[in-house]
């Protein structure tokens, strides 16, 4: 629970010493702590889970572009969000 709260994830450990698939590491934010535990304590539980993930991703092409989902881009219709990005530009003022 603690690691879920402070969101400081140990990437080095997740990548190099866990058996999680890349998709699990990225998408399973909330479950990652559970998986870590499962990994240490219950081998069997873990293998079943990873197999599920594999079948799901089996049809994924080896491609470089990420799939852009329309829903994800919908949020950019929001003016406030568009304005919040101003800070990334040189014209967006000095502070932050």
């Amino acid at each position, binding site marked *: 629970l603690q690691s879920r709260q402070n969101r400081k994830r140990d990437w080095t450990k997740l990548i190099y010493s866990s058996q999680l698939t890349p998709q699990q590491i990225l998408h399973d934010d909330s479950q990652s702590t559970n998986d870590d535990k499962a990994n240490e304590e219950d081998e069997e539980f873990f293998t079943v889970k990873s197999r599920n993930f594999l079948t799901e991703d*089996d049809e994924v092409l080896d491609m*470089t572009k990420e799939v852009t989902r329309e829903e994800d881009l919908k949020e950019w219709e929001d003016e406030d969000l568009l304005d919040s*990005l*101003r800070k990334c530009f040189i014209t967006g003022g000095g502070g932050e």
Partner: protein
Amino acid sequence: MAQSGPTLHYSGHQYLRHRLVLSILSGKPVKIDKIRPEDKNPGLTDYEVSLLRLLERVTNGTIIEISLTGTAILLKPGIIAGGPVTHECPLSRSIGYFLEPIIMIAPFAKKPLQLTLRGVTTDDYDLSADLIRTVTLPHLELFGVSDGLELRIKKRGSPPGGGGEVQFLCPVVKQVKTLNFVDAGKIKRIRGIAHAVRVSPQFSNRMIEACRSIVNRYIPDIYLYSDVYKGEESGKSPGYALTLLAESTTGAIHCSEAVSQPGIAPEDVALTATRALLAEIRKGGCVDQKHQSMVLLMMVLGSEDVGRCRMGEFTPRTIQFLRDVRDFFGTSFKIVPADPSDPSSRELQLSCYGTGYINTNRSLA
């Protein structure tokens, strides 16, 4: 490299390209099995076989064994030869699929590579010729591969008919420079290329207008170029696309692209590309998300010094690449949050000790 080490073993068709690249660069043979064993078309696809043939021609002495069913391959890498090569890419994938792995190995060839590829130049899956020219090559220049590095788009080719042609010229280097890129800077300009082939040339102007309606608010330095190809040069199928890139004060480049689809207006294609660019900018980091693995590879191959780079969120490909690169080169990265004080930031700082990879293929001058 002629030396052979222990054979590395992987399963599945995923991440095939970077594994082949790592094998050729490290000189370690690689065996990949269980390639679509349960699929109704089991084994390698036409484009994967074509990629293997291309790698065979760019190198010298590479031995590739494909099992009878095509579900397993063994690659024993030879030396990277370079020189003039021409390759017809199958129309199932764009030339980006083939060019991406080639770009990773070409700087370490014996002779400068002059590669001509024919096929589809822009599609939804891989980096288009425009992205490679305007984004991938600048990323490579960070590592000191620059003089004579060029991609020429001779003809455009949209799916499904293709008919495009590009020429890739890559110089050889002895060693790549160590990267130290931790300041992402602020976006100072936005550039874009709108192209439309075998449709009304007005389409590229409509895309440019739609894109401007969003980005004009941010910055005045916007230049969106309408790229016109006529007649023979425009390939066999109609299509159009908008490629966008945002460049920062420190030289960080973020990019996005959207490609025409049946029944979708040019304005909507442009909006998709523009929003994807904003999403990419928000992710932060010093390198574009689609180029993470290439940058990481060059960091691993860098001189024996600590290289640093700040990156936005990883992609699944990047994570697998980090694991595979450790298998081949024994290098692991130190990954820490880039702004430990800011809990909302998801940016990461990666550092590694370069392997001091020297291009032994290069003929001594």
